């Protein structure tokens, strides 16, 4: 029975980029998950029939935050290694571990990557762009991908080494601290952006601009507390109102 080699983990890392290529409502990331895990299964199960069974098993429902899916892939590759050597449980045990990994990593990853780092990177990019520089897009992209691609590149190996300890208290606390710090920096950045919008380069904007900006901010804070209508629908409605107001003036 084979053991996983660094080249297998590298192949899994590359394939994890396509985790959501066939994302769907029924199995979500299931097919992409099986595709990413396939190099490990190929190494661990030389018997074609057994390998196909494992592959088909892994095409079942799976969903988590896509960046941290790399960690889950490493953990499950390690568990498959033990399973192939006859050291750990059967298919239903594996499904349970995947379900726990998926939901726990989604809880951490959604908060860190979607709800904190992405708005933070957007704020940084917009602030640079408001100063008239094309570097805003680069700032947005680089700021997000330092962590996102870093985790994607190192995640499989990290998950393989740590096993289910990736969900340990220490790791969770580290992620929580990072999320909090980025969130705090984001608030500071939003404050600087507001100041820049009111007086770019120290030149105050017209009073009408400042009042309308404050009105938009106030309305946005109220709107944000309700799921419907969505901010996009509000933006469409308010835009139409502005056009109507100037049209018939």
């Amino acid at each position, binding site marked *: 029975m084979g053991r996983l080699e660094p080249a297998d983990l590298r192949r899994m890392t590359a394939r994890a980029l396509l985790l959501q290529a066939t994302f769907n409502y029924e199995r979500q990331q299931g097919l992409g998950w099986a595709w990413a895990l396939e190099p490990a299964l190929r190494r661990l199960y030389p018997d074609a029939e057994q390998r196909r069974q494992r592959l088909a098993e892994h095409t079942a429902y799976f969903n988590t935050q896509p960046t941290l899916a790399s960690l889950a892939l490493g953990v499950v590759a390690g568990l498959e290694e033990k399973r192939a050597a006859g050291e750990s449980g059967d298919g239903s045990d594996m499904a349970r571990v995947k379900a726990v990994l998926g939901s726990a990593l989604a809880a951490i990853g959604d908060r860190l990557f979607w709800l904190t780092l992405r708005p933070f990177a957007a704020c940084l990019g917009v602030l640079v762009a408001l100063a008239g520089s094309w570097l805003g897009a680069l700032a947005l992209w680089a700021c997000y991908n330092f962590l996102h691609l870093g985790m994607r590149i190192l995640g499989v190996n990290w998950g393989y080494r740590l096993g289910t300890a990736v969900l340990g208290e220490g790791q969770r606390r580290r992620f929580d601290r990072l999320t909090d710090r980025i969130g705090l920096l984001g608030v500071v950045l939003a404050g600087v952006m507001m100041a820049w919008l009111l007086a770019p380069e120290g030149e105050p904007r017209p009073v009408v601009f400042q009042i309308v900006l404050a009105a938009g901010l106030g309305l946005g804070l109220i709107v944000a507390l309700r799921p419907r209508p969505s901010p996009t629908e509000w933006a469409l409605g308010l835009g139409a109102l502005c*056009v109507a107001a100037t049209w018939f003036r």
Partner: protein
Amino acid sequence: MNAPILATLLLGGIAALDATPVAQTLFSQPLVSATILAAIWGEWRLALEVGVVLQLLAATTLPVGARTPEDYAVGGVVGTGVALAVAAQQPFLLVADAAAVVGVFAGLVAATFGVPVVKWQRRANEGLSRWCEAEILRGNEAALGQAQRAGVVLAFAAGVGYSAACLALGVWLLGPVAGHHTLRLARAWALAQPLWIGLGLAQVLQVFIRRRLTRAAVFGVSMLGAWLLLMMTGR
């Protein structure tokens, strides 16, 4: 078809790929696509103005939970693309503001109506995954790779096709409006731009603050500090 339009459609496909099927690196965010389109069309101010508004509105539109969020990947490309194409049709400078308001509208509408397109792709992928599992059990392990390739090709084609439809409709419907009612639309932009920016910034702030008073205080202090610094060091 001229080169900038072709490049815009290609970018629509690439953005659609980055949004969900491949890597999710935020290459598909409106500010990034607006910057690339600015370089392609050679019009920086207009592209960045549209990109900033759409970016702030897109920043908190997230793929969390069961909700299929608005498709700002294609929305960003279409919004900036329509603004640039409309501005390129008119020889006078004032049209830039009219093109900006028309572009943001096109982007918002494209993002909203992009949701059914994304849902259609996901339903098509359901059939693909069932076929794939059956093929694997039948002994065809290569089906896994074939299904992944099919998913990528479908997403790219849908991105290019939807961008093309929105861009054509946007320029055809909104181009003449921007040409004939330039002054009215320019005035509307002066009103709508700060309103949209405020609305977008509020969504971002809400995500960061989450009803924590200390965070709200930090926002106030940093705004005041930055404002004072700008007033002291500004022109």
